[in-house]
């Protein structure tokens, strides 16, 4: 429990740093891009929204920096992220809420799949090292050096444009409305297969190589040798002795590289015009929608922290050492 409490404390600090960075970015940037955007919407904004906007971006310089900062923290704690310029006058929080389920579904499922397959293949690569399996290494590093979004373009060309097996873009067919009906769910799944496959293929190499490297280490340990000497079946030695110990460092790495995978997934969404947060971020960049951009940054950071916390809970369940009283 002490382990989880310490991790929770760390994530709270990280969330605070992210919020603080978010507060200072518009204030430290040269020029005043926000003023220009602000002038575009000033006439059509409600007094309450105007107030939120000036606090978030420091346009109202009559207040001291400190009171601006606490005003900003107060807004954030109430879930107020300002008004989107792209979808004016919808609040940023509603815009994000619209895209969130899509991203959670796509990125969540494909990340877990990629971790499971990659770890399993990594075990095989470690046990069978010195054979043809080693040829997988250059192949996987080639795959991991490909940008996710480019892989997405290739996948689209082959399977959507040329073969016509899957839809070209979007999250669901325009003929169905989002609801809990089979028609909608099957359409959504049909649209999710290609982007999910892109993320799995692009990110699998990391797990594979990580697991292979750690497992090479555990395979050389004395306890594995002893297990072999006892005449235990190969399968049992591999899974219960070597892999079980190797999986812990891989889990820790998994949590740390979530940010990178999520970044890649955001770009994948753009290629597939998938209606998640990544595509919103793209639209925000195109329209110089700073409130939306910053809201998305904050939201993604909080989600990654939450995912890290979940990974820690799993880690604590797998590793008895974390449960010791420190």
């Amino acid at each position, binding site marked *: 429990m002490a382990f989880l409490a310490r991790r929770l404390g760390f994530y709270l600090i990280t969330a605070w740093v992210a919020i603080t960075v978010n507060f200072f970015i518009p204030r430290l940037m040269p020029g005043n891009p926000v003023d220009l955007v602000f002038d575009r919407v000033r006439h059509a904004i409600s007094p309450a929204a105007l107030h939120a906007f000036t606090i978030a971006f420091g346009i109202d310089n009559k207040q001291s920096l400190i009171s601006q900062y606490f005003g900003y923290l107060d807004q954030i704690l109430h879930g107020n992220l300002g008004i989107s310029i792209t979808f004016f006058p919808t609040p940023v929080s509603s815009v994000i809420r619209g895209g969130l389920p899509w991203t959670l579904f796509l990125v969540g499922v494909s990340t877990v799949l990629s971790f499971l397959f990659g770890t399993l293949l990594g075990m095989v690569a470690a046990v069978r090292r010195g054979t043809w399996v080693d040829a997988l290494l250059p192949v996987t590093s080639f795959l991991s050096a490909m940008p996710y979004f480019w892989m997405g373009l290739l996948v689209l060309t082959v399977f959507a444009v040329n073969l016509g097996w899957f839809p070209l873009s979007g999250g669901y067919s325009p003929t169905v409305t989002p609801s809990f009906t089979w028609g909608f769910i099957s359409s959504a799944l049909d649209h999710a297969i290609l982007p999910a496959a892109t993320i799995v293929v692009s990110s699998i190499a990391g797990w594979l190589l990580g697991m292979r490297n750690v497992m090479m280490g555990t395979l050389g340990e004395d306890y594995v040798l002893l297990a072999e000497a006892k005449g235990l079946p190969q399968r049992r030695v591999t899974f219960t002795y070597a892999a079980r110990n190797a999986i812990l460092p891989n889990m820790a790495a998994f949590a740390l590289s979530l940010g990178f995978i999520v970044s890649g997934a955001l770009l994948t969404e753009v290629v597939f015009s998938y209606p998640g947060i990544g595509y919103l*971020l793209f639209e925000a960049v195109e329209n110089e929608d700073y409130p939306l951009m910053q809201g998305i940054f904050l939201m993604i950071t909080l989600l990654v922290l939450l995912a890290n916390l979940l990974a820690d809970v799993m880690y604590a369940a797998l590793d008895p050492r974390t449960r010791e009283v420190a």
Partner: protein
Amino acid sequence: MSTVDVYLRPRGWLRTAVRSPKVLTGLGLLIFFVLLGVIGPMFVGNPSATGPDAYAHPSLQYPLGTTDTGQNVLAQLVDGTSVSLIVGFVAAAIATVIAVAIGLSSAFLGGVPDEILSTITNVFLVIPALPLVIVLAGYLHGASTLVISVVIAVTAWPWTARIMRAQTLSLRRRDYVQSARVAGESTTRIIWFEIVPNEIPLIFAQFLITVLYAILIQAGLAFLGVGSVTTWSWGTMLYWAQNAEALSFGAWWWFVPPGLCLALLGTGLALMNFGVDEIANPRLSSARAKRPSRRMKTKPASDRALTAPDVVVGA
């Protein structure tokens, strides 16, 4: 142990490195792209010049075809090479300097300063980099290549810093450092003459991975249209290809080459990283670990126990 050999002879690792096929292949790919970026632009025309042939297939006149406005794809590809390389190496150089400084100070200061530096490192490790870079670069309108490099460097250092701290803490406890300390060497001298030289293979391996990371982030930024969309880079080509719906027109020659170049350059860097990593950490080498599992099935483990260096059966 060869680990010790490598650590004790700082220049030995370089000689071993150039004999590794992985390092040589990677180096070959890297040199190819450096040459392409440096002397290539002299041989191709203006990448921004439009022409009458839109969406021309690859031909003798246009080896990689043309874009929707009749621009020569090969010219763009060659011209964009240098941007990827510059961003990659400049960002990685800045990030590595920050990382080494923070990692070393964290390990040597200890106590509260170490706690603070480690926490900062871990915080920046978890914050997702791409959205942060997008927000930063989004405010810097049409930021130049160098500004983009600095922004990427801000998010690229924590991983290396963490590894440097762990490695320094481990080296500090080695006997040779302890004896240097007893012999009265100053901390500065111990850091620069005993510790850092032995960390160079590690720093180099991390530098290569950071270059790859920076190149991929730059490509992502350019693809989103963050920064200058008129500076030719592989990411910018993909941005324009996506905007012109090159995909629906079946213009594969427009978006396949830039991604392929990114992947090849990335593979080269990754191979060099593996090669150097295997030298710094010989356990990872598959060539040395010729201990096929097939043998373990057929023969009892006893013969292995006898050859294994530090195992006493029945102890």
